């Protein structure tokens, strides 16, 4: 896309983001609640229409998300992923770069983490020390891989004027396909019938604190929140963050003030990819323990876009927004096992939530008409 067209598209997408940015925190929470409610209502209608018991369904959703310690752990597990990927998206969107490729960066990061750990494990001691070292190194590897995979479309945009929305969407598919191929062939774990890598060693895992479940550790959540805090600080208090955010508002003003637009775009995409890579690392270490065909892994990177929008691209806001999506996903897992309502319904409902998040205007207008909302 030509420079002029790019500027205009950016201005336009800015305006869309600005609409959401304009919404106060209160409005934002209201929109989130409204989206969820509406989506679930529609889900209930479909459930009823299909001949199942809607009340039961609703109960299952609640139980699935918060019913007991296991459910809560599950919710938090998904939440960490949504928060990290959401922050990755937020970084980019805030800087005016539309990184739709977080899914691909997440996949590449997670895969790199597993491979790094598998390769390095024989070189390091076993036990807790080795475990911690491997986790750190694995995460670093994942972060670097994710960052590199994010830098690629960044470079293509900065120096080749390639529209990042399209390239990142394409790169998602490329990542999924390439990693799928690698996991199916060259990196398939020995003796595995399914296309999976080997498992990472048992001692490479996060401690079970508070919750005694195999796939969630509060440490993971803590790491996530630290990342959120760090990113929020960078955006608000550093020159780099200021330059990035200013570029997201008005590129011309950023250039005027001495910001090197190209480098900022690449840096933004790299940072975004790095955070996505950390999400991938967390997924690999805490949740899955090996790497499998990415086509089967959840669409965290895509949902993250809705999460970030809901949070007005604010890293701190991503925490509650991520929690919302985490709860829904958890409910879905529960329903898959404990109810005969086809689990695809939850996928459909999540889709509806995402859809309604995309239309804040709908709720604003409804609010005006019913006298609930603001004065615009």
């Amino acid at each position, binding site marked *: 896309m030509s420079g002029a067209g790019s500027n205009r598209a950016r201005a336009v997408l800015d305006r869309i983001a600005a609409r959401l940015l304009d919404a106060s925190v209160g409005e934002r929470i209201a929109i989130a609640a409204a989206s969820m409610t509406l989506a679930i209502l529609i889900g209930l209608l479909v459930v009823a229409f299909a001949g199942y018991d809607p009340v039961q369904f609703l109960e299952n959703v609640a139980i699935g998300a918060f019913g007991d310690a296991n459910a809560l752990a599950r919710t938090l597990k998904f939440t960490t992923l949504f928060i990290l990927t959401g922050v990755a998206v937020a970084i980019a969107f805030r800087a005016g770069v*539309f990184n739709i490729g977080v899914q691909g960066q997440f996949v590449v990061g997670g895969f790199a983490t597993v491979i790094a750990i598998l390769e390095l494990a024989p070189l390091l001691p076993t036990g807790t020390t080795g475990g911690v070292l491997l986790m750190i190194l694995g995460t670093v590897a994942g972060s670097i891989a994710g960052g590199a995979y994010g830098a690629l479309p960044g470079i293509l945009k900065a120096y080749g004027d390639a529209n990042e929305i399209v390239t990142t969407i394409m790169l998602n598919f490329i990542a999924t396909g390439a990693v799928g191929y690698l996991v199916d062939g060259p990196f398939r774990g020995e003796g595995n019938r399914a296309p999976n890598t080997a498992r990472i060693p048992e001692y490479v895992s996060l401690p079970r604190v508070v919750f005694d479940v195999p796939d969630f550790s509060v440490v993971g959540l803590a790491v996530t929140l630290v990342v959120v805090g760090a990113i929020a600080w960078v955006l608000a208090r550093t020159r780099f963050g200021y330059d990035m955010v200013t570029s997201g508002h008005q590129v011309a003003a950023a250039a005027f003030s001495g910001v090197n637009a190209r480098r900022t775009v690449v840096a933004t995409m790299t940072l975004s990819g790095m955070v996505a890579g950390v999400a991938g690392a967390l997924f690999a270490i805490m949740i899955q323990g090996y790497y499998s065909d990415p086509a089967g892994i959840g669409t965290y990177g895509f949902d993250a876009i809705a999460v970030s929008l809901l949070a007005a691209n604010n890293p701190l806001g991503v925490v509650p927004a991520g929690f919302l999506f985490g709860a829904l996903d958890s409910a879905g897992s529960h329903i898959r096992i404990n109810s005969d309502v086809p689990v695809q319904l939850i996928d459909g409902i999540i889709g509806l939530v995402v859809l309604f998040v995309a239309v804040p*205007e709908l709720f604003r207008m409804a609010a005006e008409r019913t006298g609930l909302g603001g004065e615009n």
Partner: protein
Amino acid sequence: MNLNDRGTRLRLGAAVATVVLALAAALALGWPLADIVTVGFVERTLQAATPIALASLGGLYAEKSGVFNIGLEGFMIFGAANTGALVWLLGGASPTQADLWVAMGLAVALSIAYTVFFAVLLIRYRANQIVAGLAVWFIGLGFGPFTAVLVWGNRNSPGLVSVADVTVPGLAGVPVVGPVLFDTSPLVLLTIFVAVAAWVFLYRTRYGYWLQAAGENPKALDTAGVSVTRVRYAAVIFSGAMAGLAGAVLLAHSGSFTGTGQTMVNGRGWIGIVAYLFGNYNPLGAAAAALLFGGLDMLQIQFQTVGIQVPNRLVNLFPYAAVVVVLTVWSSTRMPSALGEPYESDD
């Protein structure tokens, strides 16, 4: 197609070069070309290209008018699932051709209904087009297989019915072209017709002018006395209808519905988007790109029959990689200037 446009010339040149190189490589590697490029292969390529082409044409129109409909994949899933479900409802375990055609028609009608809702969200309520498009994809991935489970108790349907080939007496006897075009699925002919009609409509009718203006400078169109909103609604609804038709055609060619994994649509909606980007927003270009991608898809089968091992997954990535390269190296895909911009008429 404007040959004066450097971008188009480059693309054409690149395509020709690729084909020539591929042929040369094939010869060098000793691949039995005659066994690979058979009439059957061409027929199957055309069939494989049809759903991609239809979805692509729809998406092209939407984007040309200034609205990015990236939910094509979702609409295709609905198209396929609905066609399957309707065929079953109409004809039970052994539906007829008539059932199939009726089902396809109804599925398209349903698609139009969904798309109207989508268009309202996008245009009137100024939804974020990217997120809304992704949402449709998720909704499709959810509700498509959900429908299957409701109807058949399983994400996959049992065998239903595929569309019967149509033979044009006389013309079918023409060597090479005959069996390919005149003894084949009627949906192929339909698609060719739609592609040509889409081109004529876009570049030679007043509505086509309006469409182009709506995407480039909606203000100009508005002051010319034409409702930008109506043009955009029409374009978006057309894109949803086409995607739904694409899904229906996919089912009609395959004969059953597969709802596992990414569903039988398996990314064809996304390839449709790639196709019109590749084709530089020209309907004929998009159709040609769809043909290319359909060919690649079928090529894998050919390779298998002659015993050549090519990693499926990697070959599947070609369209995506190609677009990235094209956008970077040539950067001459001119997106409509007003793309994504909600238009507020000052009425």
